[in-house]
């Protein structure tokens, strides 16, 4: 179980962990940095400053409670649906590939791709936002047309682009 350090397309540190479960079963996991206390406090103070600004202007204390409420809801949504801590790829020879993303809240979402569906695995280049990046993706076989590609599944999306 070796851990290697890399950088993402925007320069954030990443850690790659490879684990060999058996001869035909291997797990690759990319871990993003956890939520930093610094950025959390920066966002909190920004929201609070804005809320106080509004409070001074309209002198209504509802603004302050709304700010607390929004802050909490926002944080929950962010941790539960946006912030991904780890993305892992479990490759089992002859069976298939399982993609797992674990969110900061502990929620996990899993996709499984059957081996017969996998046509190939390629590294491609794409324009993403204001960047040009390389990404790893799985090509899925088109059931109707054995030569064609029905879908392209990018791997380690968040870790690579974030």
């Amino acid at each position, binding site marked *: 179980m070796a851990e290697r350090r890399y950088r993402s397309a925007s320069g954030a540190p990443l850690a790659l962990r490879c684990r060999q479960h058996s001869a035909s079963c291997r797990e690759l996991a990319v871990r993003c940095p956890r939520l930093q206390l610094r950025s959390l406090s920066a966002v909190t103070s920004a929201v609070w400053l804005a809320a106080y600004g509004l409070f001074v202007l309209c002198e209504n204390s509802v603004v302050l409670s709304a700010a607390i409420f929004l802050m909490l809801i926002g944080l929950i949504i962010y941790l539960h649906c946006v912030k991904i801590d780890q993305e892992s790829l479990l490759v089992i020879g002859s069976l298939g590939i399982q993609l797992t993303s674990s969110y900061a809240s502990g929620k996990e979402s899993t996709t499984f791709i059957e081996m017969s569906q996998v046509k190939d695995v390629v590294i491609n280049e794409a324009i993403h936002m204001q960047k*040009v990046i390389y990404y790893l993706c799985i090509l899925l076989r088109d059931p109707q047309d054995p030569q064609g590609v029905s879908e392209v599944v990018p791997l380690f999306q968040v870790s690579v682009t974030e």
Partner: protein
Amino acid sequence: MAAGRAQSVCMVSDFFYPNMGGVESHIYQLSQCLIERGHKVLVVTHAYGGRKGVRYLTNGLKVYYLPLRVMYNQSTATTLFHSLPLLRYIFVRERVTIVHAHSSFSAMAHDALFHAKIMGLRTVFTDHSLFGFADVSSVLTNKLLTVSLCDTNHIICVSYTSKENTVLRAALDPRIVSVIPNAVDPTDFTPDPSRRDDSTVTIVVVSRLVYRKGIDLLSGIIPELCQKYPELHFLVGGEGPKRIVLEEVRERYQLHDRVRLLGALEHQDVRDVLVQGHIFLNTSLTEAFCMAIVEAASCGLQVVSTRVGGIPEVLPEDLIILCEPSVKSLCDGIEKAIAQLRSGKLPSPESVHNKVYERVADEVVLPMDERLDRLISHCGPVTGYIFALFAVLSFLFLLFLRWMTPDSVIDVAIDATGPNGAWTKHCFLGKRERIKEEPPSSRSAQMERTNAPVPRGFKAC
């Protein structure tokens, strides 16, 4: 590999395949030729319908189809700012050294010039079109051209009319404007020293055999030189009413084995004739622009020509020997060429190529303060100041972008161009065990196919 330093050239234009036209094919062919010379070339254009992202063409020519909005006539909007982040990212990741923009209609080309100058890259611009001076659209385009060309390192025009036009429109110093015609494809006219017979000296003449081409002069030169140099041969390609004059000369001086008349030549056969010679002779009495001498120089021949019309401007002085249009002067010129040939002083055929890039690569990019001065002094009080302001703003924007994503973070793109490119078999052969895993032949095909469907979750923009 290139004789000089290999450059990384970025062609920028709004116009590229799948759009069809002169500019498009010029860019494509120029890129292919440069790749052959060992340079790394990439093309940046805007997305055409579903064709966006990164594609590879023949010889690993990489094309970026950027998702920029098309405004009018396949041209993107020129705001001078919105394309900076992407273009900067590409320039950095491809380690671009020269930015070559094409066509004055292309807003993207002007943007790229602007950005490249801010980033301190060398810039070349090719103008493909002629403009008027009177109507509103040309007045505006001319102003834009003045602004974007006033600090460009070098400008290429496709013809002399075009050069005159561009120099007037953009108020340029004519010295930094070169004329390189579109029509000569250097890959069609490559030197082949093995084809020539070095025991003799062969002079090639390819032109229509008419009065205007100075065939009467030629008929005077042939006997005089043949007497002087016993190893001299003449190869004459072309047909025309003056052929009879040459035949008479050949008859009179018994030169059948030394003067060969080939008759009319197809354009694709011209190179075959050219590579057999050492010296190319052009005896035209009047000429606006002589394509033949360019083709000959491209084949690595020493050119001897009359000093008429636009000819003195066509080739640099070290590639051409100019003479007055008289038998005596031309003979002197040819003798000079023969003497140079014997002493081995003639430039080797390969070294004749890619002059412009090497020249540009040695030039300095104007520092910011000089650039601002130039803008203000050159482009009129109002436009000058406005664009100087833009240049400053855009520099600040660049600093911001550098702070957001430092250059060190941007990964270097794999160089796929040319015979040593990453996707060619060549590269994989070194790694035997990898070949078993993934046959290289299917590799490039996969790259092409993957581009077809839009990846899930990945927006192209």
